């Protein structure tokens, strides 16, 4: 099997720059260092095996994240994580009203990273992953859609719900401080 230049470079040249991001994403999904390492290693193994079928010109990063995510979903932790947040009405529901004191301004004032990390941890996986892909990995909606295999409209509505859930969680934590 050749690992050369199907998408403008060898597998290693394309895949290793994603290593840190994939590991970070895996840790957020699994909540466990050892499991995250297994997940990343398995992702690289599967990706290398299937590299000949990767279509040049398509999004390699989305392809790698999709493999990692699918591997996670079929793992014991992934199956237990329950991707079961209501998906029946994912269209619609967008804006949150703006207020003078928001979780964001309070957090910036207090610079409390731990609180944000706890709030992200507490989100259902389905919300956690979309927020991480959009705001940490800075993926475009289209790239997220490719990664988690959903339509763009669903990306937008799920992202909106995820952020609302995060803001709600943060507000509760801030009020409890």
């Amino acid at each position, binding site marked *: 099997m050749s*690992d*050369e230049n199907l998408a403008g470079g*060898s*597998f*290693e*040249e394309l*895949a*290793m720059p994603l*290593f*840190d991001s994939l*590991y*970070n994403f895996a*840790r*957020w999904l699994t909540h466990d*260092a050892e499991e*995250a*390492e297994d997940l*990343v*290693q398995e992702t*690289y*193994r599967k990706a*290398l095996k299937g590299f000949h079928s990767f279509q040049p010109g398509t999004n390699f990063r989305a392809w790698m994240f999709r493999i990692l995510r699918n591997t996670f979903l079929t793992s014991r932790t992934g199956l237990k994580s329950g991707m079961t947040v209501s998906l029946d009405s994912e269209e619609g529901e*967008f*804006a*949150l*009203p*703006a207020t*003078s004191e*928001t*979780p*964001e*301004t309070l*957090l*910036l*004032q*207090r*610079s*409390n*990273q*731990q609180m*944000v*990390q706890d709030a*992200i941890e507490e989100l259902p996986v389905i919300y956690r992953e979309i*927020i*991480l892909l*959009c*705001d*940490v990995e*800075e993926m*475009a*909606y289209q790239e997220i859609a490719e990664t988690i295999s959903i339509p763009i409209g669903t990306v*937008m509505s799920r*992202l*909106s719900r995820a*952020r609302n859930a*995060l*803001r709600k969680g943060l507000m509760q934590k801030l009020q409890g401080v």
Partner: protein
Amino acid sequence: MACDSWRNKIEAYADAELPADEMRAMSEHVRGCASCTSDVLSRIQLKSVIKIAGERFSPSLAFRQRVQKDLPAKKSSAWLWGWMPKLAASAALVVIAFFFFRGWISSQQSRTIAELADLHVATLASSTPVDVLSTDRHTVKPWFQGKIPFTFNLPDLGNTPFTLEGGRMSYLNQAPGAQLIFKIGNHRISVFIFQNRPDWPFASANGRSRSLTFNVETWTEDELRYFVIGDAEANDIHKLSELLKIAARP
């Protein structure tokens, strides 16, 4: 309400995901609408807070090497590995460790600067940007007494283009510090002062940089870490930094 038609687009606007013409139209609306400006700012702040908090985990060097070892070696380097394996392996280890460390430091520094840029922007956007409002350094400095675990000197700004506007408490990595707001022309500059910490990525770094179009200068003086950040010219940031350095020296 005039904003209703924009509300459904505000999240995509903050994510820079609207088509170009809608981005332009939305920007025009946001400029004239305080409510939407506040909403957009809030969403951008949330994205920024998530970005900083979300980049949380780094793989170990050993794990990276373990995965890399399982990948097919690049053809161009195969002869080299066969020729002098031990030497190459040692050199590669040193190089990887060096760049890994440099990369880690650089990413930590970028995060800190990004966080300070957020604090600066949030302060300017706030309805009460300063807690002590005074152009008199002899009023601003004593205000911090008992609020932060250190003291600092403020420069005499007579015959300079800078004006002190006031100060407020600030926090970085949960450590309290002082944030001072200076003005030059129409630009505002934040000066952050914290106790230097050995675990900070800046512990021994001095220098100037540019982040998110802000100019930044940082240094340590007498166990305090100073950050000067703003959208003013790099030269003005530097001049203010020099004034602060002179004031800090006994």
